């Protein structure tokens, strides 16, 4: 994970090609596929935030469902109590709410590392889950809270009223582009963060906490800031997810969803910048396929995880990065 390597020409061309494909997709595939990809992009934003802690700071959180869920519930509360249906308000509200929760939880958690950190994050996320579960007069309990299709860009883009099937069309085109735009912004911002002096300090903490302290990095403070940023990214993902889903329930705050974030980050490769992004999108397809294929889908995903850890410990992108140069050197048959 060198921070010194600039983007090569080949990488830039590759990025441009991927963006063009993503832009053209709604005109090529079924609306359902586009909505599915929107989910993948949303999870990818969460993965970017999650990996700032795991890949760059060396902290494994088992409680990131808390920030995703906070983002989602913040949107639901904005609708329920403020009667606002603007996506921009959802985004700002989701980010602010999750940042506040992450700031408080992070203040407690970053005092510890390794298993103690993981257990604390898990425990705190379960506190939020139980609150959402029990305070049903506020949160709707297990019924959750419904979120209508939002207006976009200050009301300039909205779902036409009345016509049947419009919601699917809205989500697979206009809302998809909205998610895609925010996804690209998040990738760019996170790329700058991890390549900034601050990002270097985080990597130093990950590699050698004691030495980082002795070059003047205030380890606990920097961990806290990383935690806060990570929570904010994950909260944004939660805010973007809930209009797609139309409903938020306590399930999204449960530790099982935190486990899924760990899963897709490991699947893609947490030691690479784009690994968690790829992992989130692949995981989303994998889970959708598994759920449709068998009622034992969790077992299927479990087997995939075991095989992944044993065969591809560096994840999909890590393995491609490792094997790519080797394959290019192979003589043509």
């Amino acid at each position: 994970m060198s921070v010194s390597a600039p983007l090569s020409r080949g990488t830039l061309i590759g990025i441009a090609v991927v963006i063009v494909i993503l832009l053209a997709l709604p005109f090529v595939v079924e609306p359902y596929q586009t909505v599915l990809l929107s989910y993948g992009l949303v999870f990818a934003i969460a993965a970017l935030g999650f990996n700032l802690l795991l890949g760059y700071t060396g902290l494994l959180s088992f409680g990131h469902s808390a920030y995703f869920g906070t983002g989602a519930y913040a949107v639901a509360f904005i609708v329920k109590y403020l009667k606002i249906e603007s996506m921009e308000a959802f985004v700002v509200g989701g980010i602010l709410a999750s940042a506040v929760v992450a700031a408080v939880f992070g203040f407690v958690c970053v005092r510890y590392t390794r298993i103690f950190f993981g257990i604390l994050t898990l425990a705190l996320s379960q506190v939020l889950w139980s609150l959402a579960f029990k305070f049903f007069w506020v949160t709707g309990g297990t019924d959750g809270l419904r979120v209508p299709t939002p207006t976009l860009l200050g009301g300039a883009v909205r779902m036409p009223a009345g016509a049947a099937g419009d919601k699917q069309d809205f989500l697979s085109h206009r809302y998809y582009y909205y998610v895609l735009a925010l996804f690209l912004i998040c990738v760019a911002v996170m790329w700058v963060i991890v390549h900034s002096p601050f990002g270097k300090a985080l990597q130093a903490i990950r590699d050698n906490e004691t030495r980082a302290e002795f070059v003047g990095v205030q380890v606990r403070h920097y961990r806290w800031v990383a935690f806060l940023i990570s929570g904010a990214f994950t909260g944004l993902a939660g805010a973007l997810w809930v209009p797609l889903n139309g409903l938020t329930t306590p399930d999204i705050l449960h530790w099982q969803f935190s486990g899924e974030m760990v899963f897709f980050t490991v699947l893609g490769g947490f030691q690479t910048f784009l690994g968690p992004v790829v992992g989130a999108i692949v995981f989303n397809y994998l889970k959708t396929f598994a759920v449709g294929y068998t009622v034992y889908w969790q077992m299927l995903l479990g087997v995939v995880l075991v095989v992944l850890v044993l065969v591809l410990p560096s994840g999909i992108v890590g393995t491609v990065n490792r094997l790519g140069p080797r394959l290019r050197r192979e003589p043509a048959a």
Partner: protein
Amino acid sequence: MSILRTEKLTKYFGDTHAVDHVNFTVAEGEVLALIGSNGAGKTTLVNLISGLIPADSGAILFQDADITSASVHEKIELGIARSFQLVNLFDQLTTVDNVALALFSRDGKTRKLLALADSDAAVRDEALAILKQFGLDGRARTMAGGLSQGERKLLDVAVAYALRPKLLFLDEPTSGVSTREKAPIMDIISSVVRSGGITAVIIEHDMDVVFTYCPRIVAMHQGAILADGTPDQIRNNEQVTANLLGTQGHS
């Protein structure tokens, strides 16, 4: 004029008196060696002064200011830096990034979130210049984890040096390297330290290194200072000979 003074500095680990009421003085600009057998208290003394562990009692004065309770961060800001006995580097960062991080930290730039580190030409150039001083410029883009032990030792010192310290503690800078490599490493360190006008305290077991590079030597034994003097005075000190040099086979 002393840059550092400890007064009755004490650290116990259970019943072990690791550092026992030590009065230790370092004059500004000097290069001194701290010697002693394993368990004599050398590294504990440096750990106390640098802030890695807290003292049980006593005082640490840096440029006449009491820094006994100061944090590591505050001590670094005052100008105290150190390297480590077991090399402590950022193995997944490149050699130049290891030094650059120290420079960013020194200049208060590690708080910058939305600026690319590589676009800071001043830091990059200074990092490369420091690597050149330490003979590591050819390894600038190599991951620190991929360097040889001798190179890692030099980089460890270079990272501490990049903080532009007034007082630099070097904990066994030649341990774990071959006998052939020791002199070149010490030549580089000695040259950089002297040209930078840095006060240096070197913990070292190799008496040839100590006698060659350090005009003043402080010998420790069982948590206390046993002797303090020039290389000749230390060589001829009977207590040192009996407790340290004799057991280390140095003639």
